[in-house]
C-alpha cells in the first residue's frame, strides 16, 4: 500500500467558520426549561418566590416599624425599633453602660488585628506578638481595675466581646496544646501515643454541651476546697480543650502528609528530635493545613454560642435576655435574624478567607 502524501492530512484551504455557540437567552431558556425536570424545578422555585417574597417584603419593609417606642410595634410587621433600642444590650450584655467604650474598643482591636493578619505577607513573629499584646490589652480593657479603669467582674461581661474573647483565647491557648497532642500521636513511645490518642478521641466523642456541663458542674468539685474559678474561665477551659482536640486532628493531617524523606534528611543532618519537629516537620505540616486551620476558627466562633448553658451572657444569650424585657413585645424573629447576621458576617468572612488561602496554596503548588 502506497503511502499517502502528507498533503492528504493537511487542509489546503481555510475551513468555513462555524456559527457562534448559542448565547444569552437561548442558553438560559435551555437550562431553565431544557427538559421536564429543569422546567419543573424552575416552576417550583418561581412559584415559591412569588408566594414568599411579597409577604416577606410586606412584613419587613411595608409594615415594618423602624422608629418609636414599645407601643409603636403592632401585630403583623417587623419590629426593627426593638433592635434599635436593644442593640447595645445585645452587643454588650450587662456591661456598665457608661463604660461601653471599652468593649467597643475591644471589638475594634480584634477587627484591626484580624484585618492586619489577613495578607500572608504579614505573617511574622511580630504579628504573633501583636496578637499576644492585643489579647492582653483586651483583657485589661474588659476587666479594668488598673490604669484608673473601673473594675468590671467577668459576670458583667457580655455580648460580642465575650464571643470574640472566647474564640481568640480558646484558639490561642488550644493551639500549642494541639501541636503537642499531634506530635504525641506520632511518638514512638507507646504510652505517650496512647495518652494523646485517648485524650483527643475522648474529647471528640463528647458533645460540647456536655463538656460545658462538666466544666460548670464538676470543676468546682474537682478543685481543692475553696479554690473556685469563675464561669468565664470554666467555659474557656472547656472551649480550649475542645478546640485543642480538633486542631490536633487537623495538624495530624498535615503531619501525615510530610514525606518520610524529610525525617531521614533531618536525621542525616544530625538534628535531634525536637529540632527536627521544630525546624523541619512543623513548619511544613502547619503550612499544609492553614486552610482547615482557618476553618476551625469558624467552628470555634459558632461553638461559643453554647456558653449560655453555663450562664455567660454571650451574643446569643444577651439577645435572649433583651427579649425578656417586659415592656417590649418580644420580636423573636427579628432578634434572631440580627444575631444570626452578626455570626454570619464573622464566619462567612473567615470561610471566604480560608477559601482564598486554599486557592492561593493550590496555585503555588502548581508553580
Amino acid at each position, binding site marked *: 500500500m502506497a503511502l499517502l502524501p502528507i498533503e492528504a492530512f493537511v487542509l489546503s484551504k481555510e475551513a468555513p467558520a462555524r456559527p457562534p455557540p448559542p448565547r444569552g437567552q437561548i442558553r438560559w431558556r435551555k437550562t431553565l426549561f431544557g427538559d421536564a425536570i429543569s422546567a419543573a424545578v424552575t416552576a417550583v422555585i418561581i412559584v415559591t418566590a412569588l408566594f414568599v417574597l411579597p409577604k416577606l417584603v410586606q412584613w419587613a419593609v411595608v409594615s415594618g416599624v423602624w422608629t418609636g417606642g414599645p407601643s409603636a410595634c403592632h401585630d403583623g410587621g417587623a419590629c426593627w425599633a426593638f433592635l434599635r433600642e436593644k442593640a447595645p*444590650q445585645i452587643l454588650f450584655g*450587662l*456591661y*456598665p*453602660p457608661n463604660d461601653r467604650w471599652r468593649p467597643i474598643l475591644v471589638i475594634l482591636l480584634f477587627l484591626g488585628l484580624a484585618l492586619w493578619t489577613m495578607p500572608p505577607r504579614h*505573617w*511574622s*513573629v511580630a504579628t*504573633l*506578638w501583636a*496578637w*499576644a499584646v492585643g*489579647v*492582653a490589652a483586651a*483583657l*485589661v480593657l474588659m*476587666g479594668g481595675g488598673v490604669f484608673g479603669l473601673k473594675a468590671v*467582674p*467577668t*459576670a*458583667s461581661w457580655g455580648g460580642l466581646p465575650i464571643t470574640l474573647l472566647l474564640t481568640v*483565647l480558646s484558639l*490561642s*491557648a488550644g*493551639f*500549642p496544646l494541639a*501541636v503537642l497532642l499531634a506530635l504525641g500521636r506520632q511518638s514512638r513511645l507507646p504510652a505517650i501515643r496512647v495518652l494523646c490518642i485517648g485524650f483527643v478521641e475522648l474529647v471528640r466523642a463528647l458533645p460540647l454541651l456536655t463538656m460545658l*456541663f462538666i466544666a*460548670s*458542674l464538676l470543676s*468546682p*468539685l474537682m478543685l481543692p*476546697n*475553696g*479554690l*473556685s*474559678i*469563675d*464561669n*468565664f*474561665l470554666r467555659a*474557656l477551659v472547656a472551649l*480550649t480543650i475542645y478546640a485543642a482536640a480538633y486542631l490536633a486532628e487537623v495538624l495530624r493531617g498535615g503531619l501525615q502528609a510530610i514525606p518520610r524523606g524529610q525525617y531521614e534528611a533531618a536525621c542525616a543532618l544530625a538534628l535531634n528530635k525536637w529540632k527536627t519537629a*521544630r525546624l523541619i516537620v*512543623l*513548619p511544613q505540616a*502547619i503550612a499544609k493545613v492553614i486552610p482547615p486551620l482557618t476553618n476551625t476558627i469558624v467552628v470555634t466562633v459558632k461553638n461559643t454560642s453554647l456558653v449560655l*448553658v*453555663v*450562664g455567660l*451572657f454571650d451574643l446569643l444569650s444577651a439577645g*435572649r*435576655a433583651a*427579649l*425578656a424585657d*417586659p*415592656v417590649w413585645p*418580644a420580636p*423573636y424573629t427579628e432578634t434572631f435574624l440580627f444575631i444570626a447576621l452578626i455570626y454570619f458576617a464573622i464566619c462567612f468572612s473567615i470561610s471566604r478567607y480560608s477559601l482564598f488561602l486554599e486557592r492561593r496554596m493550590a496555585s503555588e503548588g502548581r508553580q
Partner: protein
Amino acid sequence: MRPSSCIIAGLSIAVLTLIGGCSPHGSRTNQDGIGGTLAAVRSRGYVSCGASQGTIGFSAPNSQGYWLGLDVDVCRAVAAAVLGDKNKARFLPLTGAQRLTALQTGQIDLIARTLTWTLSRDANGVNFTLPNFYDYVGFLVRKDHNAAKAADLKNASVCVQTGSTIEVTLADVSRRENLGLRPVIFDSVEGSRQAFFSGRCDALITDASALTSVRAVLSKNAADYVIVPADNQIEALTPAVRHGDDHWFDIVKFSIAALIDAEQLGITQKNVDDMLKSSDPDVRRFLGVEKGNGKALGLSEDWAYQVIKQVGNYGEVYNRNVGDDSALKIPRGLNRLQRDGGLMVPIPFN
C-alpha cells in the same frame, strides 16, 4: 512564620488567659473549710451571692447592671452586716442546674434565689436559713378558660421551666388528680413564658409570685389572666448557705431576722437614726446601743443598724421590690408579720 515562635506566643497568650480570665473570684478566696467564711469574706472585701438570671422583683439587674430585688436585698443586708456596706455584694447569675453545686462547692457564700426549702436539698449539703418569702405554686391561665382550681385543667398543655421543684409539683398534681397534664419543658424562664404567651400552652406553672410578675409585666391585659393554685402546699423560699460553717449560717440567719425584727419594732430606714435615742430596751439592744449582740455574732455592734440604715426593714424591702411600690404589686398575704396574721415571725434579739 516559625512554629516555635508560634508556640511561644500561643503559650504566652494561654498564660495571659489564665491570669486575665481569673476574676477576683479566681484566686484562692473562699477559704472556708469548716468555718472561716466570715474571714474569707472580710479579706476578699465582698459577699458573693448566687442570683437568678433575671427574676424581676427577686433578683434581676436593671439596665445599669445594678442588681435589685427581694433576694438581692437579703444579700445586701448580709454585706451591710458583715462589711458595713450594702454595695460590697457581688451577684453571680446561676442557672437552675448550677445553683446548688455553686453553693456546695464554695463558689458563692450564700444563695438567695427563690430557692424552696426541701428535705432533700437540706440533706444534700445545704443549710436553709430563714424564709424571706412564702409562696405557693400556681397556674397562670387565661380567664376565658373558666378554670378555678387545678382539677379544671384536664388535658391542658402546661409550660414549665426545668431546674426547680416546680416540675415535680406539676407531675405530682397531674398524677394525684389524674389530670393528664401535658408538660412542655424549657431550660429557661423566658422560654416557658414566651411559649405560654404565644399560645403554645394553656397554662404556665411556677411560683405564684413569679406568675404575678409575669402577669403584671408581660401580658397585654393583666385582667385577662387568673392564677389558679396548684395544690395546698406553701413553699418557703429561703436563702441558704452550705453545710459546715455554723458561724456564717448564724450571721445570714440573723441578717434576715434583723429585717423582720426591725419591722416589728417599728424601725425604718428613715427613723433608724432617731431610734438610736429610743429608751425601748428591745430597740436599744437591736441597734447595738446596748452592746452584746454584735460580739455574740462576731460582728461590729452596729451591724443591725447598718442593715436597716442601708437596706430598710422587711416591710420596706417587700414594698420596694414586690409590693405596692413595685410593678408587681403582690399583696403581703402570708408574708405579713405574725402579729398581722402572716407567717413572718420575729426572732428575739437577746
